[in-house]
């Protein structure tokens, strides 16, 4: 137990001291996972809204695929992305392996089904008559979508948080496609694993705590938005 205490003290010290290495790692974590989440929102929300609102043959199958995507193991994604990005692989010429871009790609693949799947559910929860009512008020397709998303904002923010949560905390893919290279692709989670492997448990705990605090602050902000105006 005193390890956790040491970790707390260490975390506090690192944050106060503004250790440049830790700052850089933290910043990269946020940048990479934020970008991946953003991309997954850009693609996942329209797709999810479409699947949630439309009726077409094979819809159940597609939905199962997406839900399975929510359970994609990060190492599997890491492995597949690695294979694609290897110099000998089909996308090898891009020279992306072991770069932050590669992590963004892998994390996008992880967050995308989460955002899509939860958007589908959010859209299905809305009374279908409300769609007609909005069309009856002259909403274009895009306006309809925006209004329905606003209506489901609670569920949508949950989707954003789940997507971000899935990637900021993920290790397998970042490790495999990023390579955990110091000063280049090392993020909070891979750094934590490294410190654990080194037996520096207190440092590992300190890094975890920094990660958790940051995640908490972001979620706090999002929760505040989510709950705001939901006091019916």
């Amino acid at each position, binding site marked *: 137990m005193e390890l956790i205490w040491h970790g707390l003290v260490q975390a506090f010290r690192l944050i106060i001291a503004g250790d440049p290495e830790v700052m850089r790692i933290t910043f990269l974590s946020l940048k990479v996972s934020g970008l991946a989440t953003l991309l997954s929102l850009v693609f996942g929300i329209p797709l999810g809204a479409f699947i949630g609102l439309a009726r077409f043959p094979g819809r159940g199958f597609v939905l199962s695929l997406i839900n399975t995507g929510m359970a994609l193991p990060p190492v599997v994604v890491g492995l597949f992305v690695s294979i694609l990005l290897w110099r000998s692989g089909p996308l090898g010429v891009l020279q992306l392996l072991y770069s932050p871009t590669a992590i963004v790609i892998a994390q996008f693949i992880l967050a995308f089904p989460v955002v899509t799947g939860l958007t589908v559910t959010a859209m299905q929860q809305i*009374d279908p008559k*409300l769609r*007609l009512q909005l069309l*009856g008020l002259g909403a274009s397709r895009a306006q309809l979508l925006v*209004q329905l998303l606003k209506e489901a904002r609670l569920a949508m923010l949950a989707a954003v948080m789940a997507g971000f949560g899935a990637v900021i905390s993920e290790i397998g893919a970042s490790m495999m496609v990023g390579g955990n290279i110091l000063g280049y692709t090392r993020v909070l989670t891979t750094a934590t694993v490294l410190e654990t492997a080194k037996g520096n448990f207190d440092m590992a705990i300190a890094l975890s705590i920094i990660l958790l605090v940051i995640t908490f602050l972001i979620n706090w902000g999002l929760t505040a938005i989510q709950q705001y105006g939901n006091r019916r």
Partner: protein
Amino acid sequence: MSAAVIEARDLRVAYGDRTTLALETLTVQRREILAVVGPNGAGKSTLLRILALLEAPAAGVVRFDSEPVRYDSRSLLPMRRRIATVFQSPLLCNTTVFGNISLGLRFRSIPKPEIDKKVSLWADRFGVAHLLGQPAATLSGGEAQRVSLARAFVLDPEVLFLDEPFSALDQPTREGLIAELEGVLRESKVTTVFVTHDRNETLHFGDRVAVVMGGRLAQVDAPERVFSSPVSEEVARFVGVENILRGVVLEQREGIGVVSLDFGQIQVATEAKAGEHVLVCLRPEEIVLARPDASFAHESMRNVLQGRVDQVIPIGAQLRVRMNTGIPLTALITKQSWQELSLAEGQPVQAAFKASAAHVIRRREN
């Protein structure tokens, strides 16, 4: 008659294997107010959704401004923007009252100052101006309905579809609104289609009435015509003809027929020929009551029946008097007249009606 704004032909809508709607032709004329009435589940709301271009029929053609409607969102949007729809239950978005009323205006990218002006005008008109900042989810039933009305009227549409728009309003507001809206609609020449269960609204508001029953158009006519001359027994019952008598025409001369009923004969205005089976419809307000000893001065009261008062039920300022004259009859009478008659339940009574007061439905078969 002016041109049809909306014209529907051979519409068919089915859910599962149940046909919910099947009608041949319905046109909505420019600037008319068309009332749609019918029993619950008849298909009125479904019809409205089709006419408002919110749902594609399984079969049939809808024309908007003479153009056949193509159901892709690109061609629908400009048409829908000329229409506004108020649904049966006020489906408000989870935002403020202002947010809801301004929704359609924002969809049309109207500039903010204009939105503010229009919203406050219509919020005021529908008595919700004091609620503009309140979350829509906390409104009372009537307040919600007012907001959903304001949300449509603020759009200044060419065609307005209203599905039981006043059902949750308190009576003074309702009466006030109807009077006011009628003025507004007629003056601004908005084509209006509205569903209602209220006979007064139908009579007062509608230029024409479409009676929907079991997914079909049973009758489309002027309001007075529908009420006074229903085309079938179902329509008659639906529009509140409480006295429907089955009989056979014995003879007919100069438009006055003698009809034989189970308990005797009556004279009614009809073109039906001798031997035809008919239904005689008598609105309760057409029956005049008198003390059993009175004699009817008016010569036009061709039919005088003797009976006994069964039950007296107050309906607002009036009374519904049920009596037995061989067959049960119901009359509607003011409280004042009833007091002057000084009759009571169980006492004998005379009931009389003019030959022209009855409406006769000729039946194909028995």
